[in-house]
């Protein structure tokens, strides 16, 4: 899978180390196995359930099992991990050395979130007969870098003073919610919706199931998507002494409803696919190559009036252009 293979976050072992306190039963598997109803012993499932976050009162459906962090960012990558068995839970015994580059990773997302964003982006711009998609373009890195910028969202510096009132559609988005929190809420809600609908986390769903979930979001479903109110649920009948389940109530606002989150995800995915690689996405200019946008060309003076003639020049990124006009730094 092109450039993505070389990315350290694609390595399963380190991410498997990152959440050692998971399951007392020690059965914590990678990926799909963590989902309820996928072959764990009944007892272990109940143990897990106590630690699950649920989508809350309206649905009452268990969701977002914590072990999802084991769904590595490259869950869709066909390449098998170097050592699939290497998922020890004993921190003391871990070998922390890695050959991964030191300067790649996530600045806002945690791998759990990145995996879901990456899986969704891969359905918005799939890898298919028309070439590389959002995964190869590194869209998730673009999004991670952009939402790290304080006060900025898709359309730049945002006016952030109150009062915050809902307003009319002609008045634009009025929410106080920062873009990174929109992602935070939306990612969690999408995963919860996947569990509610298909009994599997979003990353573990089949591409067809993922498409259906995203199509629902685009239609504004489910209602109540993206609630923000944490509430304790009644204790499990098993009478566990562990923490109560946590539920999210289902208030929806323009900035956190299903359609708004879909639009956010789609806009950022497309921007990450087509922006200059300097911004973190469009790796190897795969987005540009797909449509034939040549990039940072200093001049088309000689070509502009050669009508109906395919342009033969090379693809040039801003970085390559800057090396030409600015020289070595």
């Amino acid at each position, binding site marked *: 899978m092109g450039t993505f293979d070389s990315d350290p976050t694609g390595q399963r072992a380190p991410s498997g180390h990152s959440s050692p306190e998971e399951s007392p039963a020690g059965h914590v598997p990678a990926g799909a196995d963590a989902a309820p109803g996928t072959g764990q012993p009944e007892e272990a499932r109940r143990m897990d359930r106590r630690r699950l976050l649920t989508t809350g009162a309206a649905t009452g459906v268990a969701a977002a099992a914590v072990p999802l962090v084991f769904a590595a960012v490259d869950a869709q990558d066909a390449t098998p991990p170097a050592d699939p068995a290497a998922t020890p839970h004993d921190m003391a015994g871990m070998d922390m050395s890695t050959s991964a580059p030191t300067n790649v990773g996530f600045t806002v997302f945690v791998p759990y979130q990145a995996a879901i964003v990456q899986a969704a982006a891969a*359905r*918005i*711009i*799939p890898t*298919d007969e*028309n070439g590389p*998609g959002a995964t190869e373009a590194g869209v998730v890195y673009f999004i991670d870098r952009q939402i790290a910028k304080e*006060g*900025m969202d*898709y*359309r*730049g*510096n*945002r*006016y*952030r*003073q109150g*009062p915050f*009132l809902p307003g*009319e*559609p*002609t*008045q*634009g*988005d*009025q929410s106080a919610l920062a873009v990174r929190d929109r992602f935070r809420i939306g990612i969690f809600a999408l995963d919860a919706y996947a569990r509610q609908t298909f009994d599997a986390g979003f990353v573990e769903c089949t591409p067809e199931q993922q*498409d259906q979930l*995203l199509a629902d979001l*685009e239609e504004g479903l489910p209602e109540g998507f993206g609630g923000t109110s944490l509430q304790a649920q009644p204790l499990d009948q098993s009478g566990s002494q562990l923490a109560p389940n946590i539920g999210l109530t289902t208030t929806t606002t323009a900035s956190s409803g299903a359609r708004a989150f879909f639009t956010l995800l*789609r806009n950022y995915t*497309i*921007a990450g696919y*087509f922006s*200059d690689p300097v*911004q973190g996405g469009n790796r190897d200019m795969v*987005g*540009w190559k*797909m*449509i034939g*946008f*040549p990039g*940072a*060309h*200093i*001049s*088309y*003076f000689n*070509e*502009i*009036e*050669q*009508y*109906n*003639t395919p*342009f033969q020049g090379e693809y040039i990124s*801003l970085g390559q*252009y*800057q090396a030409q*006009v*600015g020289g070595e730094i």
Partner: protein
Amino acid sequence: MATLPKTDVVFVGFGLVNSVIANEIGKNTALKMVALERGPYRDTYPDFLQDHFDEWRYSQQGELFQDLSRNTITFRNQRDQAALPMRNYGSFLPGNGVGGAMVHWNGVSWRFLEHHFNYRSHHEQRYGPGFLPEDTTIQDWGVTWQDMERYYDAYEKQFGINGKAGNLNGQIVEGGNPFEGPRSAEFPQPPNKKPYNTTLFRDAANQLGFKVFPMPSGNSTGTYTNPDGLTLAPCNYCGFCERFGCHVGAKASPIINVVPSALASGNLEIRQYSTVFRINHTGGVATSVSYYDEGGQEQEQPADLIVVGAFMLENVRLMLLSGIGQPYDPVQNTGVVGRNYTYQTGGASATVWYDDKIMNRFMGAGSAGFAMDEFHSDNFDHTGLGFFGGGNIAANNTGARPIDSSGPLPPDSPTWGSGWKATVKQYYNRSAGFSMQGESPAYRQNYVDLDPNYRDAYGNPLLRITFNWTDNERKMVRWIADNPITQIAEAMGGSITRVGGDITDYSIVPYQSTHLQGGAVMGADPTTSVVNTSLQSWDVSNLFVVGASAFPQNPGYNPTGTVGALAYRAADAIINTYLPSPGPLA
């Protein structure tokens, strides 16, 4: 707060208007000048030559525009709504920095038509007094096209505008716009190169008998040296034009065409990062301006003469914050400051997709294109049509950076997934579009004032815009779409065609244009204007307020050619009439 040493002239904002006026004062007098500009100074080198090709940074995130986290506007469609802040870039993108918004404009550079300047009397003469709807506050400018001609000429020569004259001293010239007023001179440069898509529009419209002409353009055709010895390079058609500074110094702009000459006077100091918030005045005389410096500290700069050229929005807001002129009251229909706010009516457009043609849409320049004026304003008979007005119909190609321009895609195309990808791949480079830029009449209910609730970063009230389209514009857009636009789109051939012709309520959300007019309009009558025909405040005679804020209403053209001409007119009045004998001008 510090009170600084007095200077002769202070400029508020340093975009098109004030760079032109400072340059003329600098060349013709020995006055000391201070310019206060809220944004930074950026130049071709190193800023635009070494960056510029970054769609995300410049086009989506708005690197060069007004910082909305500090200052924005509030908006509502009508008075019974709560106005809410424009929190993100949307409908328009005000400039920020030395050179103003021309640093990142497209370069479409019109002269208005003759009857635009006497718009009310023209309609009353042709159709009778009751023809314009009762709620329009359309009015004459107080100047004629003939009064303005030499200022248009000066602007075009300073900025090296290219195009083809259609009326030279009263002679209609083949290949130009036959509807334009009589020019005293040809354009300073011949038309620039044209992208393929614009020639398909030209050929189809010509075939239908319309007189298509090259769009007047500020994307330099060749190497052009202006009367002050400043040189534009030839445009490279790089396709990063609107929203970007030019990397080779080929886009007409104050930073290329004016600022170096204004500074060369030796009498001008430009202070960057200086945000003016009040004009201080007493007894009808302005004494100083108050501003926040780069660190946010309040400063007071005294001066004998104050020229405000801070773009329409800030021109009007500063008048209101300073308590100069009577604020407009739409209920009582009294007052003037904030009255006659207008915009630009879009919505009539067509796109044609071809399966057998490649457009190379990524090659382009903001105003490389063709236009026609048969359906502009009153160039056609409106008897029985049920609306007045119209607009210029044109095709240009500012480039096709792919975040914004992976589309337009044919109707009902998928919006994501493999279907979307296949469609984008097929049609990204195969569409040709054109549209009408419609006029925006002035109405009693459309206006600007100070917002009662929202404030800027310094605690001053934001400007509030109350604006909507009326049935007149809705009918105008529908009719233009159903008639010339549909005819031309059909004549263009292609596999798929879409015509758009519906406008409902004005929305602040999608980008439309940075063409904002009115609020401090010029005129011969102080009860319906804020400045006189020399752009001088009726109330404070050592204050000039210059820009599209002076337009009583907006025709179906981009405003900047006329803003530039008004700047030359104000400079002329200041230097040759006001300075010899300061006081109210006729």
